[in-house]
């Protein structure tokens, strides 16, 4: 009950943040605009329509990922410092609220806010993709009736797109947990850049892995060791980036297994971060 009360309040507060609302509106606007994108090959051929859809899908997912990252960072960095600055934390922690309940409530609130925002962007994205596909089919059928094109031929709305959005959400649950941990002891500005650093390094996980495993010419042992540590410690955001695999016939053989694996990975990573945040916050003076 206590955790849920804190989560609900955090979400209510975050959803009213002007900057998050601006991100959401801009993202939705851009996704809607992507409806008018067309590739160089146009609609004169079947492949042209397919390329068009791919463009809309890639752009949409990329945009949701970018806005999701910004939202996680902007919201996450102020989760604890803002409570202290506004002094709301005094009235809350002077009640019978355990500190871990406060941290979990804040995290849950942030995650729910992300879920709502990503859900809204996701819905607009999926509607845009579906409409675009129908439009492409209608256009091609009109110009080239001999093609006998069907909607299914141009990859209309499919589960894979939904899965792509879910993966985006999962990666930001992890990023939020990292930023929440930092927010216990860092100022919002420093935290923003730290969080961004973690996100970028996490996205470059394949690079750090290659260097850590194979080594690079001219790199000293300590540097290689540093890459190894980075690869182990940093969240592997690259693994969530399955847009290409989803859009071009999948490189991932068992998508269900992969998704479950990523859910477990996200849960474990977030739990570890929460644990660190709780331990640190237990001794934090407010």
């Amino acid at each position, binding site marked *: *009950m*206590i955790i*849920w*009360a804190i989560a*609900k*309040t955090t979400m*209510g*507060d975050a959803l*009213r943040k002007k900057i998050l609302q601006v991100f959401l509106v801009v993202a939705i606007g851009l996704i809607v605009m992507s409806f008018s994108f067309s590739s160089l090959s146009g609609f004169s051929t079947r492949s042209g329509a397919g390329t068009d859809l791919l463009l809309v899908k890639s752009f949409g997912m990329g945009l949701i990922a970018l806005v999701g990252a910004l939202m996680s960072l902007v919201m996450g960095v102020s989760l604890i410092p803002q409570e202290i600055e*506004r*002094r*709301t934390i*005094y*009235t*809350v*922690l*002077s*009640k*019978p*609220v*355990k500190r871990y309940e406060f941290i979990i409530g804040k995290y849950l609130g942030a995650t729910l806010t992300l879920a709502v925002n990503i859900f809204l962007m996701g819905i607009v994205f999926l509607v845009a993709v579906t409409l675009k596909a129908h439009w492409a089919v209608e256009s091609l059928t009109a110009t080239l009736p001999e093609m006998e094109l069907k909607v299914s031929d141009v990859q209309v709305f499919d589960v894979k797109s939904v899965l792509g959005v879910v993966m985006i959400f999962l990666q930001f649950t992890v990023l939020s947990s990292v930023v929440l941990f930092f927010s216990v002891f860092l100022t919002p500005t420093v935290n923003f850049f730290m969080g961004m650093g973690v996100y970028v390094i996490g996205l470059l996980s394949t690079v750090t892995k290659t260097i850590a495993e194979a080594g690079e010419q001219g790199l000293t042992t300590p540097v290689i060791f540093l890459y190894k540590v980075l690869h182990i410690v940093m969240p592997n955001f690259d693994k969530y980036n399955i847009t290409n695999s989803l859009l071009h016939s999948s490189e991932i053989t068992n998508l269900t297994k992969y998704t479950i694996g990523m859910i477990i990975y996200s849960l474990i990573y977030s739990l570890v971060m929460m644990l660190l945040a709780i331990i640190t916050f237990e*001794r934090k*003076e*407010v």
Partner: protein
Amino acid sequence: MTDAILVEGLTKVYKGRMGGEVAAVNDISFSVRQGEIFGFIGPNGAGKTTTIKMLLGLLFPTSGKAQVLGMPAGDIQTKERISYLPESPYFYEHMTAVEVLDFFCRLFKIKGKERKSKIDELLQRVGLAEDANRTLRQYSKGMLQRIGVAQALINDPDLLFFDEPTSGLDPIAHKDIQDLIISLKAQGKTVMLSSHQLSDVERVCDRVAIINRGKIVRIGDMNDLLSAGRTVITIAESSNELVEEIKPIAERITVDSGTVRIYVEADENVYKILDVVRAKARLLSVVPQKQTLEDLFVEIVREVRK
């Protein structure tokens, strides 16, 4: 009976940026009895809020002992029985008064119908029933303070910490808070009141501690501390010789357009001065004055600073 608050050798040291140390609270000891209103006063930065925060478990002492209702400060079970009204309390501004109180009720795990009736009762008590569904963004400072009071009463606490509860309030709201504290005392509650409004503290508190630069410089029953009084003798048509004659036994003498005011502490000196004055000047008035908490506070703080 266990003391409501017991503090022994409590110290809070902050590390400065240049590696130095600053003792915000320095080896203080005091106790607050159950059912009393305890005033905790001091100049800005004296260590009042730091002490209260340590008692609430928001800050951790560097050394010393702090007990609240017989348990170590910060104990979660004890927090069921205490409450805190911070100076200028802030809440989530997007919420209405009902939502804010609902949130705090949930922190006490108060359920369903009980929660609703509790919220209605509190809103009535603090006079916000009419504005219950307005967001706090639209509230004045006084109204926010009333919400602060309401949240502090949710759990019907045995011990209340009030930190500057009347700061910046209009006279009506000010009086309401004073009356609330008096009614809490009548209900047998214990209140630790930190305030710069010394007339309030003098009016409602049973005992008072004065803290200055992290140290308690005076503590005691209000009546004992303020027992000392003075008499002001006002005369006219006096001479310089008369003033010089009185000076050694007067506490202070002021001269203003021919009117001389003589401040005297001891009663026997009052009679001595009156004997002298009767023959050499015209006596205008003899007014006994009770020392106020403000007088005492200013006197002590100045003395310590010297």
